[in-house]
């Protein structure tokens, strides 16, 4: 039963993310536009390129959706309101989101087209930049909570949210999450200005609908991860836990979708250099700092 509630919440959340993204891109807040687009996409032809890698081309949107849903499955909306409360939830989240890379490379390789292939390989470069910055902050969070279970991580923040305890990790994790969901300014695989749609360009019709849905779910999963790991999950006064979770996730999503578009698209060389020369040392410093504090202080 709760699984059904959660999936319904997930659908509504994904829809709201689509509304917010439409507002960020077009400057107009329209509650019905995503529904219209989805219905219209069903009526459009779903084309297949002439010499595709059929398996890769078909599997990529599905894999993306599966990865997103598996990641959402370990996000707690309230104590007990979680699809699968794994003891290794944080690790499972990271493992599920690693398939985003596989799916995008498959989407890039599949249609045998120039723009898509370049987009796919650019995403691999982006992955090498952000992957460590997803894992290392999670490690620091797990150190405080003494557990990888997402529920335990939230309850460990009862005294102080991780965003104040580990601000460095928070910043790195948010930036890496934007890279993972290929949100601007890190939208190298589907850059509209560089690659005219890139990996998404060859998908049309219902396949494109699945791809866009999958992307919304991934953004939702990442917002949920940020809220769970750093913003105290369901913790908060007056309102019930799930309301706080939803509100926080919407705020995080809005921030991720809007602030990124104020900055020009990051060059791949700059992204990799920043990730490895600045990001990794900072993440290691974060782990070290949290390690010292966790031993000394008891919260």
């Amino acid at each position, binding site marked *: 039963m709760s699984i059904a509630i959660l999936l319904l919440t997930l659908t509504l959340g994904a829809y709201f993310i689509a509304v917010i993204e439409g507002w960020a891109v077009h400057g107009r807040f329209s509650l019905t536009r995503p529904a219209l687009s989805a219905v219209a996409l*069903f*009526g459009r*032809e*779903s*084309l*297949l*390129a*002439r010499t595709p890698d059929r398996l890769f081309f078909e599997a990529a*949107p*599905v894999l993306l*959706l*599966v990865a997103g*849903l*598996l990641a959402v*499955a370990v996000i707690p909306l309230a104590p*007990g309101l979680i*699809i*699968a*409360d*794994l*003891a*290794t939830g944080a*690790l499972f989240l990271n493992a599920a989101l690693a398939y985003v890379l596989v799916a995008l490379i498959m989407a890039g*390789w599949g*249609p*045998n*087209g*120039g*723009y898509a*292939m370049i987009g796919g*390989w650019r995403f691999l*470069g982006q992955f*090498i930049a952000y992957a*460590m910055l997803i*894992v*290392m902050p999670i*490690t*620091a969070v*797990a*150190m405080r909570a*003494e*557990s*990888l279970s997402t529920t335990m991580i939230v309850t460990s923040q009862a005294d102080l949210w991780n965003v104040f305890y580990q601000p460095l990790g928070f910043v790195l994790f948010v930036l890496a999450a934007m890279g993972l969901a290929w949100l601007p300014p890190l939208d190298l695989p589907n850059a509209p200005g560089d690659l*005219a*749609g890139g990996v998404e*360009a*060859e998908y049309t*019709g*219902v396949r494109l*609908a699945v791809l866009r849905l999958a992307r919304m779910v991934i953004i939702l999963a990442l917002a949920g991860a940020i809220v769970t790991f750093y913003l105290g999950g369901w913790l908060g006064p007056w309102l019930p836990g799930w309301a706080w979770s939803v509100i926080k996730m919407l705020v995080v999503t809005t921030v991720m979708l809007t602030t990124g578009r104020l900055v020009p698209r990051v060059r791949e*060389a700059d992204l*990799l*250099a920043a990730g*490895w*020369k600045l990001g990794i040392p900072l993440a*290691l410093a974060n782990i*070290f700092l949290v*390690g010292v504090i*966790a*031993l000394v202080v008891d919260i």
Partner: protein
Amino acid sequence: MENSALGQYAILLGLTLGTVGFVLCLYAVARAIARTRAEPGKDVPATAGSLARDPVWVRYHARYYGYALLFLSFDMEMAFMYPWSVVYRKEGLVALLDMGVFLAILFLGLLYGWSQGALRRQ
């Protein structure tokens, strides 16, 4: 809620299969609405108004292989850090020192790679 790990993984497997089934249903609905028409030029990947029919499955010259090699070593390290982070507080200072040494060695490797020019667009 299932408490056993196996039960939870069964739920996740069910979720996966359900998703695949859902997507197949969507595809079936789209197919029932109308079929795709094959026309000349339509199946060539869209490239801004010119037709590019040549295959692009070639050896791609990725420029980030320096980063990729370092990434492999750090990824192996992170596999060790997951269980370490869970027992860290219980183990105390010893845990910090042990992993600190490990991380320091890897960090030195990163610095060495940086000095040799691995961390740049090749």
